[in-house]
């Protein structure tokens, strides 16, 4: 009976009648209107703007592709790109292995209080980046900051004299940003890995145990293939998020790009040009440089994912 109802539901009911022909557009219209006005139009306009020089939002002048030409020869843009790339690599190479390791530990069978631990480790990602930046700005201060004081007293028993004057915010800016982002996002990424691990088929694990595979071999032959799609997703999310780094350095360094532009990132440079200098045109060109980098990363991820599917088939 239910089978009949289902087919009729798909075939006639949802299609027939005048009101249900109009209905989907009525349901879609709030989204479409907002989307057209505040996403599509600005997207098109960003192409136009990137070929203009502006003095505030009102005064514009057409300059063709010279914004892009200037960008390629702009040393500050390259500093921003380099810093952002270092931060992104740091996120990928340090953060994601820790996140996966924690997820593996968290999903060991027989662990009690698992959901509470997951909740605790996830909680920093609820804190807005602005607020975390406020906190870490003080944590990384010389002398009084928690980071130096903590390292100083923790390492003392091992005979290491960690200096209270270690300049997190002066010389080691990228390390400070990466450490802060570890606190903010390890639990977030762990949660995705952990959800993926829950979906690893129990029968495959048991079969490999019966076959006498050790835990390390089991990890590479059963677990890794099973969590690969989610891992790809997490990597892509991390790259996209890291490349848009802005609030953390901007707040930590009091609305500047830090000493010797050590905290300059792509979006921070975009912000400075667009809203401090007032050149929305150059800012849009920087935006397109960012978009192209991210699209290339997304395309690369799609290609490798598809390659794997093809080789698996």
């Amino acid at each position, binding site marked *: 009976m239910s089978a009949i*109802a289902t087919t009729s539901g798909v075939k006639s009911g949802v*299609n027939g009648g005048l009101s249900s022909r109009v209905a*989907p557009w009525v349901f879609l219209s709030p989204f479409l209107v907002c989307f057209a006005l*505040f996403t599509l139009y600005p997207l098109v306009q960003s192409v136009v703007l990137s070929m203009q020089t502006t003095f505030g939002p009102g005064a514009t002048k057409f300059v063709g592709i010279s914004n892009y030409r200037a960008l390629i020869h702009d040393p500050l843009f390259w500093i921003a790109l380099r810093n952002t790339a270092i931060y992104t690599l740091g996120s990928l190479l340090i953060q994601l292995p820790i996140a996966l390791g924690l997820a593996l530990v968290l999903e060991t069978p027989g662990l009690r209080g698992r959901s509470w631990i997951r*909740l605790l480790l996830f909680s920093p990602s609820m804190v807005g980046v602005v607020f975390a930046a406020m906190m870490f700005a*003080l944590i990384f201060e010389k002398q009084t900051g928690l980071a130096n004081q903590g390292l100083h007293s923790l390492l003392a028993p091992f005979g290491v004299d960690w200096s209270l004057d270690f300049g997190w915010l002066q010389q080691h800016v990228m390390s400070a940003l990466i450490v802060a982002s570890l606190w903010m996002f390890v639990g977030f990424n762990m*949660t*995705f890995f952990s959800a993926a691990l829950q979906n690893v088929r129990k029968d495959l694990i048991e079969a490999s145990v019966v076959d006498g595979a050790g835990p390390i071999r089991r990890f590479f032959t059963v677990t890794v293939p099973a969590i690969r799609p989610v891992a790809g997703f997490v990597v892509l999310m991390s790259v996209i998020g890291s490349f848009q780094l802005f609030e953390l350095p901007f707040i930590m360094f009091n609305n500047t790009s830090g000493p010797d532009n050590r905290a300059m990132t792509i979006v921070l440079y975009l*912000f400075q040009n667009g809203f401090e200098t007032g050149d929305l045109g150059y800012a849009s060109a920087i935006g397109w440089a960012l978009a192209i980098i991210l699209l290339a990363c997304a395309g690369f991820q799609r290609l490798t994912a598809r390659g794997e599917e093809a080789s698996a088939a």
Partner: protein
Amino acid sequence: MSLRATRIFAWLWTRGVLLIAGIVTVIPFFWLIASSFKSNEEFFRSTFLPMDGRRIAWERLTTEPFRRLFSELDFSNSLVNSIFLSSVTGVIATLCCAMGGYALAKFRFKGRGFCTALVLAAVLIPAPLIIAPTYQLLYRIDLLDSFAGLILPALAPAFGVFLFRQAIISGVPNDLLEAARIDGAGEWRTFVTVVLPLVRPMIGTFLMITFLGMWNNFIAPQVVLQDPSKFPLSVAVAELRRGYYNDYGLQMAGTIISILPVMVLFLIMQKDFVSGLTSGAVKA
């Protein structure tokens, strides 16, 4: 190593790792709370709680930073602004996305393929790319320095339509919709009484995502708003760092006030939120 020893080692190892991760997670929170109850003098004197020998000197803690936030500064105003902006955006954006997702999931119409492709492509647009043109647009339609200028652009996140489309495809059976129509329910009533209750977890998740998104948003209010009485907490807190640079207790108290409401909300919604957040990635 014997099997027993291996087991004990594994037990200790997993608990040890999780304990360290837990401590590292909690300590900054704890430091933040302790610092917000300190005078500047005390801030320099102690790392966590003020100590008097081996006794915790509770009497050296002070609520002065919080008092100043709400008397000397207009923090209650920023709190209200944040709550207003985040709730209005959350509710309307969730409704818009649920409606859009429903249309793409359960109706067959000309243009459905195009709309779905549009939504999928839009997920790839990085937000910073459209900041400058959106600012120019808001200037032209005279919405700079207004709440509408913040809320309107946040009402149609494409990934929300995508999430609801997925949730409705997998969670709403066609025969239920058919039954509702046979009973004479109109399209809108079917949506409200049949579809929405079935995707309740996704509604919770997405309300939380959009609420958080607005609450924690800094760049948009920083760019759009000029009048300090309109500032949400994110901008007001950042201003503390400029205007009260040497007032550590005040800065940390402002940060706590900004984090606390979100944490409470998270604890209430946590179960649906975390599973809803990961469901898209794991199923996809």
